[in-house]
């Protein structure tokens, strides 16, 4: 799935990439942009909208052609009270004399939401508008989960057709060994992709691991299948819970058998069967030695009770 998204083979109208500080999506975005440029699309124009000077410089360093970088958001964000997203849409109509199609990339929607004082309404309206317009073939946005309210993130995630979560980017030793022969720096992305099919409206989930090299080419994609049996998972969690205990909670085989064979008294209610006690010859006797103060007689001690 991720490979199809990166090559634009999967026609997803809107893609939201959710990353975090240590699991950064920059390389993933660069791979997407590089694939687009290599395809040499004549009728589709790529429009990058950096939201800060730092990201603008980052794109300038990466891209040979700087005309794909549009400063509409950068010049208006925070410095004016205008709807910067509406400015983007208006400008696309204004400059589209050749009736091209557009791919819009916004690198940090956290700052855009801050511009709207964390009110997601304007951004949601923008995404819906982009999905409706035939001249906008794809919208790609990056969100950083650490400075976004979870509720806002969930709300925004629901209106995108595809949401890509970057869960982990740390390479294991066996993975490093696997790619060591290539003599390239490899970046790993452990991804969860939720894709809404427009035909069936079902949400399909994919768990994949993507490996990209330092030239932003895809080296390998691994698909992770979900475990089917739930009981195995339950057993494993129970075993994990019992591992660290200092006392024994397990039953031996004899104890298990005795437990299985035990008949509890309430199980015999309504049945003719009864629990048979073993008959013993010896009867138990109680020996009582009275004190001086004890009044021993044969009268019934409960005679004085009035009932």
């Amino acid at each position, binding site marked *: 799935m991720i490979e199809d998204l990166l090559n634009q083979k999967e026609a997803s109208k809107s893609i939201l990439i959710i990353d975090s500080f240590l699991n950064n999506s920059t*390389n993933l975005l660069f791979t997407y942009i590089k694939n687009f440029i290599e395809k040499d699309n004549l009728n589709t124009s790529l429009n990058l909208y950096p939201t800060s000077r*730092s990201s603008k*410089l980052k794109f300038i360093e990466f891209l040979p052609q700087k005309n794909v970088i549009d400063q509409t958001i*950068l010049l208006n964000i*925070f410095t004016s009270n205008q709807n910067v997203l509406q400015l983007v849409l208006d400008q696309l109509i204004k400059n589209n004399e050749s009736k091209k199609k557009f791919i819009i990339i916004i690198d940090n929607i956290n700052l855009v939401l*801050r511009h709207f*004082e964390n009110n997601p309404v304007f951004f949601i309206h923008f995404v819906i508008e982009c999905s409706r317009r035939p001249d906008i073939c794809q919208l790609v946005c990056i969100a950083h989960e650490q*400075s976004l309210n979870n509720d806002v993130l969930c709300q925004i995630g629901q209106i995108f057709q595809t949401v890509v979560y970057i869960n982990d980017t740390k390479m294991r030793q066996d993975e490093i060994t696997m790619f060591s022969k290539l003599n390239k720096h490899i970046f790993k992305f452990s991804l969860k992709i939720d894709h809404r099919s427009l035909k069936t409206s079902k949400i399909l989930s994919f768990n994949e691991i993507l490996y990209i090299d330092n030239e932003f080419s895809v080296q390998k994609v691994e698909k992770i299948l979900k475990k089917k049996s739930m009981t195995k998972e339950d057993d494993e969690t129970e075993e994990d819970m019992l591992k660290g205990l200092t006392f024994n909670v397990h039953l031996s085989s004899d104890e298990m058998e005795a437990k299985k064979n035990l008949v509890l008294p309430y199980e015999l209610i309504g049945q003719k069967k009864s629990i048979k006690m073993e008959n013993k010859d010896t009867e138990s006797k109680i020996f009582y030695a009275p004190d001086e103060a004890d009044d021993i007689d044969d009268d019934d001690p409960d005679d004085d009770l009035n009932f």
Partner: protein
Amino acid sequence: MDFNTVIEFGKEKSSFYLVDSSTDGSFFIHYILSHSIRSNVKTIFVTLSQTLGHYKGVQAKLGNSTSLSTSLSERSLVHYDLLSKISQAYVEGKSDQIKIFDDLVDKVAAVVQQKDEDFILIIDDLCLACLNGVSEKALFGFLAKIQSLSDKLCLVVYAQSMLATRDFINDLIYMSDLYFKIENLSTGYSKEIDGQMSVFRMNEDLNLRPQKYLYKVNERNVKLFQI
């Protein structure tokens, strides 16, 4: 190793340094100020946490007293007291917070127009503005305006993260090129070590793994030990 061997301030390509400190990381500001005085780079020093007298005293200890006075008189170092400006604005009842920074932005623009050379803007400490009632949106607007004035501007922002929300600091981190996280040792106090500093090169390092150092602040310098 010395602080200036790890961070060669004059050679760094970064345009936005963010210093996020959960402890006393003011040594960083004194180091940057000392560097800008010695290298004669045009500097605008915006203060909120301390008076100019305090910085003069520290620079005197570092042996830069005369240089600091000379820089101030020659206007290669310009001081701006932002805290007084914020309090004045509140006393006068000015509700538009973005206009609090207009005077500072105009001064920076005037400096930029004078000469086409590199210059530094140091802010100590941005989170105190939040504490004094300035909205986070107004602060972001101010930073965006400042950065749009010139590509030759190097912005150094010191922020004591316990004075602001974590979301604010996280958004600042994504705006920065070079991010320093200064914190206490996780294992407790030590006589030999004052704290830990992590350096994140946000745009250069594609893998974003930090360089970590332990630091010790001495009377005249800062020693770093790589971990």
